[in-house]
């Protein structure tokens, strides 16, 4: 267990006044985007990313990941107080959180949510600590065919396990792959799919796509639904916090079950949204207080919150160790890694131990800081939501426009983001999942490179993907997952489909 030595080293990197300040800033910004409608973890991180280009990579990733945790927490605040999920992954928290708040138990609901979320996140980080180095060492044996198989596995598990319509998931993925090929080809230097437009030479940045799809698209959806805030009292009573904390151990079984679901869904690209729904569903079926679910049952808050956060954190495991992100937000972070000049994947552990273990250590710190901060700032952020939408909505749009511009200092990108906004709106209305699109845009080049290198190795024969046990197993798993919707329909072992991971 040399990893604990590395973790200790990580703490020496992460534990400084500067980094703690960055964590606090990141968490607060994260809560803000988590609370605001139309802004969420994926595009919050996207908007912040261009500002980190000049930062040291360790500090940059700590800032972005802290923002991610903050956003996950912020999403729960609005779910409980306003019955409006600030994040898709906190939808399941509204089912019992809001009824609790309406009964005057807002503090208890919030404290229960935050503490179980914090514990869930810690489970996720511990899993990363234990497994990341081991998986990375294993992945060092991979060459191009194995990497292509891993990417294919990630894509296929979205299609097979994502829960949305498999055809729509597949076309969303493929469209992302197509957009990823626009611009200069890294291997041959040829210009692809630019059709003579100079603005397309740089390619289409996934950051611009995320800002449009998640930011502007989400906002159009909000406008169409005529969002009205019906908030309950957001006063926090300190005594209630400790009562809730004392009651938490009662839910240990729910907690363990939810954490396992969360970690599993985080590592496989199911994402936090699917994890929280699944955990809530299972809790409603098997929980001790299942009869009370939906009527303000704390157990119904513990289940989705624990799973949501353990999925959110463990989504970083495949990103770090394999270079395959487990959620839309971690896909954006991985894109950031590449922009900072780091290569995500197994080599990262040997070449950049400071970065990897600094990040992992910071995850312990930032989640603890986040629990305290989010409790302390509930009244502040609740009051932000009371600002009329006519003021906050247009400002969010301006933030998106500026964010799109800062990606490459190009006005064309702003127009592109606006266009992606319409696409995002239509996709969301028609239940096309967006996370696979983002994942494909981030992984597209790497997947294509791995594919082309494999083809060169084998002189154009697809048999290379069956040439040894490892790659054959990975390919077999990928194909199994791809066909899973068909298989499960034939056997109908899987009852109602899992909710989607559209934006997890």
């Amino acid at each position: 267990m040399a990893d604990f030595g590395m973790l200790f080293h990580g703490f020496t990197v992460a534990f400084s006044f500067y980094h703690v300040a960055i964590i606090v800033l990141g968490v607060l910004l994260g809560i803000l985007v988590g609370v605001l409608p139309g802004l969420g973890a994926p595009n919050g991180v996207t908007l912040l990313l261009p500002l980190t280009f000049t930062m040291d990579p360790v500090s940059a990733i700590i800032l972005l990941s802290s923002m991610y945790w903050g956003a996950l927490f912020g999403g729960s605040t609005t779910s409980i107080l306003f019955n409006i999920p600030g994040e898709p992954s906190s939808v399941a928290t509204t089912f019992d959180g809001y009824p609790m708040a309406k009964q005057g138990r807002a503090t208890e609901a919030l404290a229960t949510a935050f503490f179980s979320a914090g514990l869930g996140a810690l489970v996720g980080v511990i899993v990363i600590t234990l497994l990341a180095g081991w998986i990375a060492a294993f992945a060092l044996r991979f060459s191009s065919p194995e990497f292509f198989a891993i990417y294919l596995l990630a894509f296929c598990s979205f299609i097979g396990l994502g829960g949305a319509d498999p055809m729509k998931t597949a076309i969303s993925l493929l469209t992302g792959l197509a957009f990823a090929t626009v611009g200069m080809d890294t291997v041959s230097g040829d210009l692809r799919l630019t059709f003579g437009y100079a603005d397309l030479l740089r390619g289409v940045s996934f950051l611009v796509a995320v800002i449009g799809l998640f930011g502007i698209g989400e906002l159009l959806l909000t406008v169409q639904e005529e969002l009205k805030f019906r908030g309950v009292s957001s006063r926090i009573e300190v005594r209630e916090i400790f009562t809730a904390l004392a009651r938490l151990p009662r839910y240990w079984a729910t907690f363990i079950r939810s954490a396992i679901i969360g970690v599993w869904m985080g590592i496989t690209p199911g994402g936090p949204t699917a994890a929280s729904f699944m955990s809530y569903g299972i809790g409603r079926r098997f929980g001790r207080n299942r009869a009370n679910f939906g009527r303000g049952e704390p157990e119904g808050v513990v289940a989705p919150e624990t799973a949501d956060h353990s999925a959110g954190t463990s989504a970083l495991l495949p990103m770090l160790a394999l270079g395959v992100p487990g959620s839309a937000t971690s896909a954006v972070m991985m894109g950031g890694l590449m922009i900072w000049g780091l290569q995500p994947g197994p080599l990262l552990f040997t070449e950049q131990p400071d970065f990897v273990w600094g990040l992992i250590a910071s995850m312990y710190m930032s989640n603890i800081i986040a629990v305290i901060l989010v409790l302390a700032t509930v009244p502040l952020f609740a009051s932000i939501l009371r600002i009329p939408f006519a003021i906050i909505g247009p400002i969010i749009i301006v933030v998106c426009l500026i964010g799109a511009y800062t990606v490459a200092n190009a006005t064309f990108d702003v127009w592109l983001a606006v266009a992606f906004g319409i696409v995002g709106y239509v996709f969301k209305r028609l239940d096309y999942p967006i996370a696979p699109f983002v994942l494909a845009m981030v992984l597209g080049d790497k997947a294509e490179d791995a594919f082309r290198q494999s083809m060169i190795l084998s002189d154009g024969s697809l048999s290379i993907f069956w040439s040894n046990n490892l790659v054959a197993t990975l390919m077999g798993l990928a194909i199994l997952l791809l066909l899973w919707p068909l298989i499960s329909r034939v056997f109908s072992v899987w009852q109602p489909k899992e909710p989607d991971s559209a934006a997890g």
Partner: protein
Amino acid sequence: MLTRRHMEVGTGLALALLGAVVLYGSTENGIGWTDVGPAAGYFPFRIGLLIVVLGVAIAIRYALAGRMRRPADVAAADPSHPTEGFAAFDSRFLEDGALGRIASVFLPTAVAAALIPWLGLYLASVLFLIFSMMTLGKLPLWKAGLISVGTMVAFYAIFEIWFQVPLEKGVVLPLLGIN
């Protein structure tokens, strides 16, 4: 009347068209084998092909699907529209006034984005904010103006001064002496 079915079929066909564009574009790079391995269009061509096939398949499926989807499916597939699952495919895609509400946000956004090369980000944003706050929230001009200008001054401070990231100034701002 625009129904959900129209939108489903239209989106499927639009995606298929996009796939066709990818197909056409990739043929310009060569889709076969070269001396150094697969040509640049090899991968995009196959992706484009799959998109065309899937897009057409989606369009056909939704054109033919005469039944209602099970409510549970739709509610599960998109948590943000739990009620939609109970409506048939041939229900209206946009309720009364929804198109107007969307347009009232989207059109000003598009206009503001289009004006950036001339007015720059800051000025275009100020005008967009004032316009939106007055039309969406019926704020008086002085209040909308105060909030808008205050917001953009704050952004100016954050980007130009703190992070040293210059944003587009357009043609007009430099004339006013702001660079």
